[in-house]
Structure formats: C-alpha cells, structure tokens
C-alpha cells in the first residue's frame, strides 16, 4: 500500500469522488503508484558501491598459482552498482508496495495468519542462536539441543504422537517425509503398496507429494456433510493402500465426525493414517491426531506456531509419529543422554531403518526458536485458549456473514458450525450480482483487507475460504463483515465497481495471461 493510502484504508474504499472504472483513477494515484517499478538493477551508476572490502593482509602469490586462468570468471556478474543509501531507499520503498499482517486483517483460509510476536525476533537474533554454526560440537551447543529437545517433546504432547523429527523444512517437506516413512514401514514388512487415498478436498501438495514418493493417488469422495464418504472409503480401502492422507478439521473447516470409523477402516487393511497439520490451530489442547488414530503428523510451525511467513517462507514442517513408524524417522533427532546432556542421534548402526536425511543439518532452527518461544509464552492453558478463540472467532464471523444481505449471495458451503475456518460459495453471488469471487476479493483490497483464500477447495463453486485466527478482535471481524455486506450492496447497484477493482492499490489488476505467454522472469541488462 502506498504511504498515502495507509491512513485511509478502512474509511476510503478508494473510489470517492469519481466513477470507479473511469480512467480518472490514474490521476488519483499516490506517488508510489505513479513511479514505474524500477528494479535495483536499473539504479546506480558504474563504480558506485556500498561494500568496502577488508584489506588484503596476506602475501599475494602468483595469480595462476592461486587459481589457473581456465577456472577464472572472465566477466564479473552484472550485479547492481549502488550505494548503501540507494539500497535502503530502494527496498524500503518497494516494501511499502506490500500489504502485511502487521498492517491489516489477513483472513487467508488454511494459512493461519496469526500475530507474530516481536519477542520471537529478538530471541532468535541473540548471537548464541543466530551465530551458532550447525556443526558446532554437541557439547558446545547444549542450549540449542535442549531447545530442540523441548520442542520435540511439546509437539509430541500436542499431537499425541511420541516421536518427533524437526528436520523437514516446510509442510510440503514434512508431507514428503511422511509418505516416505509410510513406504519404508510397509517395505520393512515385506509389502509393496502402491496407493495413497486423499480426499477430493485435499491441498494440492498431497497428490504432488505422493507422486514424488513413487506412489499413486486415489481420490476419495466427499459426502453431503463435507466429510469423507465412508462407502467410497470402504470400497477403495484394500491391501494395496499404503496410506490415507487427511486434514482434520478438513479444508472445509469441518471436523470429520466419523474419524474413529475412518481410522478403523484404514488400519483394518493395514494402511497408515497421515495427518496434514495445516489445520492444527483448531484443536490444540482439545483433540489430538494421535488419539484420533493417526500414525504420522506434520506441523506447520509457520501456521499454528506463529513463525512469520516472510512473504513466502521460511517455514518449518516437523513431523511426529507413532511407535511403529519411529524406527524410520529421518536422522538426526535430539536425544537426552543418561547424564542429562543432549546429543544428536544419527542412528548409524548397521541395520538402521531410518529413511535418511531430507536436507542439510538439523532443520530450520531459527523457526524452532520462535515456535518454542511461542509455546513457552502460551503454555498448556494458552494453547488451548488460542484454539478456542480461533474457533470462536471463525464462528462469530460466520454468523455475521449469515446475516441477511450476505447469506443469500454467499451461503456456507457445508455444515452449520465450523472449526477455525469456513468455506462460503460465491455461486449465487455470481448468478445474481454478476460478480465472481475474484471480484469480491479484489474489491476487498480497496477496503484495506487481505482477501480470503479463493477458488479452494475445488469442489466448492466460487469458493471463499475464511480463517480469521484468534489474534483478531471482534471489532476487526465486524469491520470485515460490514465490508463484505457493503461490497455486495454496491454490486447489486453497480457490478462494474467490483469488476474493475482494485483502485487504491500500488498497481491494479495485472495481465497474468501476458506474463505466462511470454515469460519475462529477470531484468534485461545491457
């Protein structure tokens, strides 16, 4: 958002004073809007610089002896030539063309955009954490290993599954670990199973992961209540099924009431049950995947445990598993020795069943520090409170959006109540008001809100997936509900307004077709 717009976001939907889809909007643009986006490569001047190299304090041997000419780069990479003030202006300037969680409501379904406490940044920046080398001897990294051990223990307790590996770098990486673990478990028993069942509501990462792990996806149908279709499950559960991957509550925001029966069917054919932890924020301290019968869980520390999203990473995707899966966990894990000290257990003995490493070193420790700080801050009582308020907030916002004026255009897709998120269908809105979910989303930008997740899950027509999280106030939820109502009323009078939105943002709708047809993915240089 431009600096000029920031103070007016909630009050000014961006079109006061002139007709919304009139070219006059360009004249109303703020300074950040008027400047054409120039990259750092288009700034600076030859010879300009920020870096001052430390002095060469050793004898300079013959260049050829140092590095034979044939190995030497002939032309330096064409990096920018800019001063420090230019770098600061440039990046601070473009940062203002971002919307962020610290500036406004971010109800992206399935993403759990909860507040990121600044304490965590301060703690993670302590040199004892930030400048600790990953190959430091374990006895000289006892604080870090203790932190990881404690985090492993907390995640085990929260999930109800006793063994934890912190190694996976993100949720998708945790999923890959989980499917490889399932495969290793079956192979160890002398079985080759090819199929992985995933509901048709699943995140796209689930099927992509299954293919990368060399298995095959079989889709499960959703029943009219939004849960797994048990008949379809029974028909497809056979001895060739390795695993069922499930999110519970699912991507519709619904807790599957048949979960115990689902687990019994899956375990009955010898398959494992995998829990996609994307929606754990609904059930912390209230219900545990381990108690539901799951064998493997991945956590998204950047969702439930408030690692900042960083504009698209980093994340962290630890996994917790049951006893029968434990021998196959990626290594190393942190163990506590008899004397109370902490060690990295690599399990290098012959006959080790570990699937091996998934990446370098021990995982995203910087994320562990933040999430551990979060768990310490909230504690047993606070984690449960967090989930309760997340669910309360979601249901309250849902209730507000079921009021007259909204509900007839954006009905709830499934269910009555919801867990931490819910999915509305924009189908009736599209038919009655001639605007699509995408247009509603774009118009919300003018009201200073980040839109919900749109067009997912795929089985809901014109889906709008809303997750408010526990760190939002009632006032914010009300303001958001009011904005939706206002946009719908506005569309009833003149759909062109939403169809042309947004108006107040640094750029307006972008030509994605042109970007995909003729990809320009780097700055051209002279």
């Amino acid at each position, binding site marked *: 958002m431009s600096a000029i717009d920031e103070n007016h976001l909630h009050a000014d939907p961006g079109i006061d004073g002139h007709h919304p889809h009139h*070219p006059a*909007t360009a004249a109303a643009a703020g300074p950040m809007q008027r400047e054409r986006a120039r990259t750092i490569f288009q700034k600076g001047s030859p*010879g300009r610089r920020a870096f001052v190299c430390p002095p060469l304090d050793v004898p300079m*041997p013959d260049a050829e002896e*140092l*590095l034979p000419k044939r*190995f*030497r*780069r002939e032309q330096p*990479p064409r990096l*920018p030539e800019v001063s420090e003030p230019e*770098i*600061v202006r440039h990046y*601070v300037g473009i*940062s203002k063309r*971002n919307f962020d969680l*610290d500036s406004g409501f971010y109800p992206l379904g399935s993403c759990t955009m909860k507040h990121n*406490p600044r*304490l965590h940044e301060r703690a993670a*920046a302590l*040199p004892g*954490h*930030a*400048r*600790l080398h*990953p190959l430091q001897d374990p006895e*000289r990294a006892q*604080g870090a290993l203790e932190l990881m051990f404690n985090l492993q223990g907390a995640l085990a*307790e929260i999930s109800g599954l006793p063994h934890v590996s912190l190694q996976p770098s993100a949720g*998708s990486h945790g999923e890959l670990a989980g499917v490889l673990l399932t495969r290793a478990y079956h192979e160890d028993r002398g079985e080759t199973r090819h199929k992985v069942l995933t509901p048709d509501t699943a995140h*796209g990462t689930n099927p*992509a992961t299954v*293919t990368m792990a*060399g298995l095959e996806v079989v889709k499960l149908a959703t029943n009219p209540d939004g849960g797994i279709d048990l008949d379809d499950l029974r028909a497809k559960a056979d001895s060739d099924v390795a695993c069922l991957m499930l999110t519970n509550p699912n991507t519709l925001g619904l807790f599957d009431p048949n979960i115990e029966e689902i687990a019994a069917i899956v375990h009955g054919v010898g398959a494992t049950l995998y829990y996609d932890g994307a929606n754990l924020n609904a059930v912390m*301290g209230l219900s*545990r995947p381990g108690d539901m019968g799951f064998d493997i869980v991945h956590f998204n520390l950047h969702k439930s445990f408030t690692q900042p999203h*960083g*504009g*698209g*990473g*980093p994340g962290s995707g630890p996994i917790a598993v049951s006893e029968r899966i434990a021998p196959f966990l990626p290594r190393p894990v942190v163990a506590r020795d008899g004397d109370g000290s902490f060690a990295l257990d690599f399990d290098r003995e012959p006959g080790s069943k570990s699937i091996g*490493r998934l*990446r*370098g070193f021990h995982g*995203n420790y910087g*994320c562990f*520090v933040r999430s551990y700080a979060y768990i310490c801050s*909230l504690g047993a009582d606070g984690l*449960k409170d967090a989930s309760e308020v997340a669910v309360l907030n979601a*249901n*309250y916002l849902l209730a507000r959006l079921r009021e007259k004026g909204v509900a007839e255009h954006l009905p709830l897709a499934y269910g009555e109540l919801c*867990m931490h998120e819910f999915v509305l269908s924009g189908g009736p809105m599209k038919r009655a008001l001639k605007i699509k979910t995408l247009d509603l989303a774009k118009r919300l*930008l003018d009201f200073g809100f980040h*839109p919900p*997740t749109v067009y*997912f899950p795929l089985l809901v027509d014109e889906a709008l997936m809303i997750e408010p999280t526990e760190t939002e106030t009632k006032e914010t939820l009300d303001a958001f509900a009011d904005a939706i109502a206002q946009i719908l009323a506005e569309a009833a009078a003149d759909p062109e307004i939403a169809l042309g939105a947004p108006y107040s943002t640094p750029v307006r709708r*972008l030509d*994605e077709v042109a970007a995909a047809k003729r990809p*320009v993915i*780097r700055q051209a240089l002279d």
Partner: protein
Amino acid sequence: MLAAIGVSSVQEIFERQIPEGVRLGRELDLPQGLSEQEVFAHLSQLAARNVSAEDELSFLGAGMYDHYVPALIDMLMERSEFLTPYTPYQPEISQGGLQVMFEYQTAISELTGLPVSNASTYEGPSAVAAAAYLAKLHNSKRRLVISAGLHPHTIETLRTLAHGYGMEVVLVALTTCSAGAAPGSTGGVTDPDAWAGAIDDDTSAAIFAQPNFYGAVEDAAALSAAAKDAGEPVVIAQVDPITLGILQPPGACGVDVAVGEGQPLGNRLDFGGPSFGFFAAREEYLRRMPGRIAGETVDVDGRRGFVLTLQTREQHIRREKATSNICTAQALNALAGVVYLAWLGRRGIVELGELLLSRTHYAREQLAALAGVEKLHEQSVVREFALRLDADVAAVRGRCLAQGVNPGVDVQALSGRDEDRGVLLVAITERRSRADIDRLAEVLGAAVASERQAVPA
C-alpha cells in the same frame, strides 16, 4: 459473540463437532504460560549455553559459513512489510515481495550464468534433490551419477529421495594424491575416467559440486563435456555462490542446472537454517522448474508490475503431475540474498572472492607446513580446504577448543565414512584475518604435536 453464533458456550461449539471419543478431556502436559520477560530470560539462558562464532575463533564451514552480514539486511528483514505477509497471492498488494523475487531471480541468473532462476527453494542439499527430480521428469531415465565430492548431506538427501523417485544413485570416487595417482594429478577432484565410465544411456542426471566438499575447484567444463559425450544426462552442479565472482559460472561450463546453498549470501548461521536454496537452469528446463517464479507484466492502466507466473507447473494446479510438491519459497532469506548481492555489487563480489582466495591459500600453506599436517589434495581452493592430520582429529580439536580456537570440521564425524578419518576441513571467511590464521596455525601445530607425542605411532 456467543449469542450471534447461537450457542451458550465456546465448549458447546466443540462438543457439537468433535466426537467425545477423540476429545482430549484433560490439559496438555506442558508448563503453564510465561510472561514475555520470563520467556526472553529462558531463551537467553539457552543461547548462553551455546558457543557461537561470537565466542570463539571459528573455522567451521562445510556447507554454512560465518560471513559478515551487513546491518542493513537486519533492518530490512525486520520490516513488517517483508517479515509478515504471506506468499504473494494477491499481486496488487504484493508488488514489494514480487519485485524482490524478480530481482533475486535476476541476481541468481547473473551469478550462475544461466538464463532462468526460480524464486528459491528450501536450502542446498534438497535443492540438489529437486534438480534430480527435474531430470527424472525431463528424460524418465533411471540413474543418478553423482560425484563423491558432493557434500555428505547432499548425498544422503539424494539417496533418501531417489528411493521415492525410483532412481538409483551411482557414486563416482575422487582422485587421490597417493601412490598410483596419475602423473600431474592434484588429487581431490572427481575422477574423470570413472565419471565418464559411469555415465551411460540410462543416466538421467550427472551431478557434481563446485568447489567440492573438500574445497577443491573441479574442472567443471571438462566434467560437463565428458558427461555429454558419454550420454544425454542433465548436468547438475551444486555451486557455492560466494565463489562466483571469481570462478567460471556454471552456465559457461556446460552445466544445465545450477543449484546450491544460499546461506553465504547475507544469511546468518542459525544453527543450520532457515536459509535458502537457489535453482537456476537453461531455458529449456523452465517449465520443469520447481517452486515459485515471479514474472513481469503490466496492469490495466499500463503500469509495470509483477506476478507469480508459470503456475501450471505447481502443485496447487497440476497436483499429482506437478514439477514438485514445494508450496512456497524462502522469500525472506532470498531477500537477504539479493540485498547482500546488491551491497557487494559488481566489483565487490570479485574483490571479496580475491580476498578469500588469497587468505585461504595463505592459511592452507601455513597449516600444511606444520609437522603432522598435510594437504589432502593439491588442487586450487577458494575459501575452504581439507587437511589430513597425523593424529586423532577429535583429540586435536579438543586441544584447540580449549584454547578458544575451533579449527574446523572433523570430516569423519560429519560423514561417518572411514576414508574421511584424519581429515579436517578448514573454512576461511573474510571475518578471519591473517592474525586469526596465524593464531590457528600456532594452536593447531601445538595440538597436533602434543597428540603425536601422547600417542606414539
């Protein structure tokens, strides 16, 4: 709020949705919550029990390095506008992040000499595994021929994931300096004959590291050419980005896909993560690339803007046929990377490379002159090199640590391989001055001498 929802308590919302049999019914067995200052004190105490690069003279490397991180990176990474957004799904309000990705892609493309880059992946070793998957999708062949000069973590990661891909990993040994080595051989590099011999028509990818794990500069052009003479593999190089100011870029050496660990570029050590992996390739592999890619376009008013593009490669659209299951990137870490490269600049990256080259050479000569210490190989090195000690490495390191000097990585402890016994890997960043190197030589020399005396041969 309860009245609006139509329930009498928050509990009722849960009771109506979660079957009783799977409700926890007790409090989690975790400590109660703490105040902010108590949590900070606890995390400070844990930090104090770690010996960081601040607390000792450290020559640790082997994949992550104690390079200087300029202050402006801290400032920019802490800005809410970069720290707290999600992935840029709404481009109209994410131009900052998208432009950073576009600039980052440009910088990586320039560094590697390859035309296309994604917006980053998790980190180094898994980026190599992602490149192997690209090769599988590209040619459906079954074998991965890899140099033993890859980082042990890369080799282990490749083995883990190759099992999922249904591919076989074939390891090609390095040359040695010992008796029987070819005349003129410096040792320490991928054995060219074994490399060419291992690659056949069923080889999907041929993968090596530049410089390799033991610090040696490989003849990348020769390895690429030999690979393409022997078959049609995708040639993949795991590259150390800090060396690319002075080393031939992979794009100029016949490499098809260059990947690597981005941590040396403006990212802190963080005990191993988060950092970022970079991923660059020739144009023909663009539609097989994993992860996010930002592209340039215009808005309805003709203003320049950026969007996520070529998304049909990705899991949320192509699902089981996606080029990867990766969902997002390491955007914040990649931001640090591109800011660092802008800060170094066109000249700075060369100057820094020359400084590392000279100091590393100096350190290697000083240390190899010590009694009981020899070079593992004679090949050129840039900022890291391997030594063989005529003494127990763990014991030698213990003596050095007691003097406040961490002399480097005990390679066998890292790799678990017998052939790495006695090998010490020493990294030199610009933060280690000549005086620091001289101090290392003094302490290491004394430690090796003491150990050789303590344990007669």
